[in-house]
């Protein structure tokens, strides 16, 4: 019984290490020279160098891409939340016979392969002058994330007892007051973690950013792909670029971990 537990623990840690290994490999590779990086088997002991990072920053303007990623993910998320809150509210608290169907329909739009609409979207953006603009990416990411944001908020709102809102209705006049004093404070952690989720999803999206931007509004996913171009792969530099691209979002995730757990599990578990 007891030795079983120890074995299970060891197994768990081994699996954990295997899952974590690619990230470790990447960070290590980014600190090696190009020659060391392609060595097989990979060397675990080497003299770390920040060389790759300097090259990457000087060759392509990292900060420009990072800034674009931040602007686009934050504003698209804000817009999506602004649209999703009233939508989820009415789905959760004023359900009709067709609410279920509408919710599934909304989610089903996510099942369409994006390649299918690439051409018309590209032409549309070109004609409207939205190519390689922040606004262009913000709009498309808002629309792409809306179904998920609506679903997560809906799931959360649905868990708020109807009677609490009815009590509020008896005591304060107007929907705005109910929203400001009751609904918003009650769901702030859900809104917060939904926002984080949306930011992360946008941060990692590469299909539309690669196809609709060049440099002006290009986010970090474009930045990385410029290092995996066919003219020759540079493992160490690509690793440095990847590390730089992941860094901000990893940091954000780490800082907001507790809030995130609270928001994601409050509706589900408690």
């Amino acid at each position: 019984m007891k030795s079983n537990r120890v074995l299970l623990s060891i197994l768990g840690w081994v699996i954990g290490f295997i899952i974590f290994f690619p990230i470790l490999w990447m960070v290590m590779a980014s600190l090696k020279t190009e020659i060391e990086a392609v060595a097989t088997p990979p060397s675990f002991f080497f003299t770390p160098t920040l060389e790759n990072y300097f090259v990457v920053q000087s060759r392509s303007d990292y900060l420009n891409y990072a800034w674009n990623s931040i602007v686009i993910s934050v504003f698209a998320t804000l817009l999506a939340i602004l649209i999703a809150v009233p939508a989820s509210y009415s789905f959760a608290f004023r359900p009709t016979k067709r609410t279920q169907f509408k919710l599934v329909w909304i989610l089903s739009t996510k099942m369409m392969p994006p390649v299918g609409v690439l051409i018309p979207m590209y032409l549309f953006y070109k004609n409207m002058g939205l190519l390689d603009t922040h606004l262009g990416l913000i709009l498309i990411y808002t629309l792409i994330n809306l179904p998920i944001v609506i679903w997560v908020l809906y799931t959360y709102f649905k868990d708020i007892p109807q009677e609490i809102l009815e009590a509020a209705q008896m005591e304060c006049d107007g929907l705005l007051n109910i929203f400001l004093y009751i609904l918003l404070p009650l769901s702030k952690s859900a809104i917060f973690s939904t926002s984080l989720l949306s930011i992360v999803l946008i941060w990692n999206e590469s299909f539309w950013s690669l196809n609709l931007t060049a440099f002006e509004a290009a986010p970090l996913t474009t930045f990385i792909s410029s290092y995996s171009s066919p003219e020759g792969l540079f493992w160490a530099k690509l690793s440095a670029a990847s590390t730089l691209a992941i860094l901000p979002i990893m940091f954000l995730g780490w800082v907001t971990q507790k809030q995130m757990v609270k928001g994601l599990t409050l509706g589900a578990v408690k």
Partner: protein
Amino acid sequence: MGSINLVGVSKSFGDVLVIPSVDLEVNEGEFVVFVGPSGSGKSTLLRLIAGLEEVSKGRIEFNGQDMTNLAPAKRGLAMVFQSYALYPHMSVRENIGFPLKMAGMPKSEIAAKVQEAAKILNLSEYLERKPRQLSGGQRQRVAIGRAIVRQPKAFLFDEPLSNLDAALRINMRLEIMELHQQLKTTMIYVTHDQVEAMTMADKIVVLDHGNIEQVGSPLELYRAPDNLFVAGFIGAPKMNFLTGGEASRYNATTIGVRPEHVQISTSSGLWTGKVGVSEHLGSDTFLHVNVEGQQSPLTVRADGEVQLNYGDTVYLSPEEDKVHKFDNDGKAIR
């Protein structure tokens, strides 16, 4: 301050007619209980008065003024919900003070009012706590406190005690009754529990399928039920009903006699039967007697010390002046 009048009020949800047409007068200061089984429309009726549901047809008047289409918050009524409906993100103090804050009362005045209500309800120590840190009974008291501070024209209670355990329920029942004695405000109370209705009400409104079956004081309903439904619903244990030959002897289709109005004897009586299961409560014993020619056993209340065994033959006689007679339609014959 608060007489409430319903005139021809009806309510449909889509195609489903929940309340056909209700006329009802609630006088100022009265404690009125709506009682009925689930699906009787009692909660819907309360929610119509509160304004949480729209009236399909008819009129609701407060003190003679039509308020049918007024927003809930403008009606000046306070409601206590079954689940307490406290705001989980606010402390007890904020919960109780919330309606006053919404009404735009100055902070110092709110503080004083909250203090006062907390004192009445024994909540002074808990003012800084969040609802989740309170017991069921305390939560219920906070909900009542939130209703009191507004000094409403009337209180509406929607099965407020059904989430509490038995002992607490009896305590809270007495507290609400004391409150009514002190405030003398109109109260409308919804429950499915006829014991609550009997003990608390000045006036009981018995509902079934959205129709008012009878309106009256508890003892009026107990002594002179208008029909079979009210006769069977009010009183515990349930009234015994007999049909066939036993009933026609009284020129009725059905006769009813309450368990406490049947004399039991081991020697002679009007009806003969065999003792089934018996329930010993200590204070009383209820015997279930299978009488010949009747489908369901008759319940008889005997005093606490009676000892009869399963299968014994006994004789039952009703107290003649306590026999209720009903015609073919279930209406009482008087």
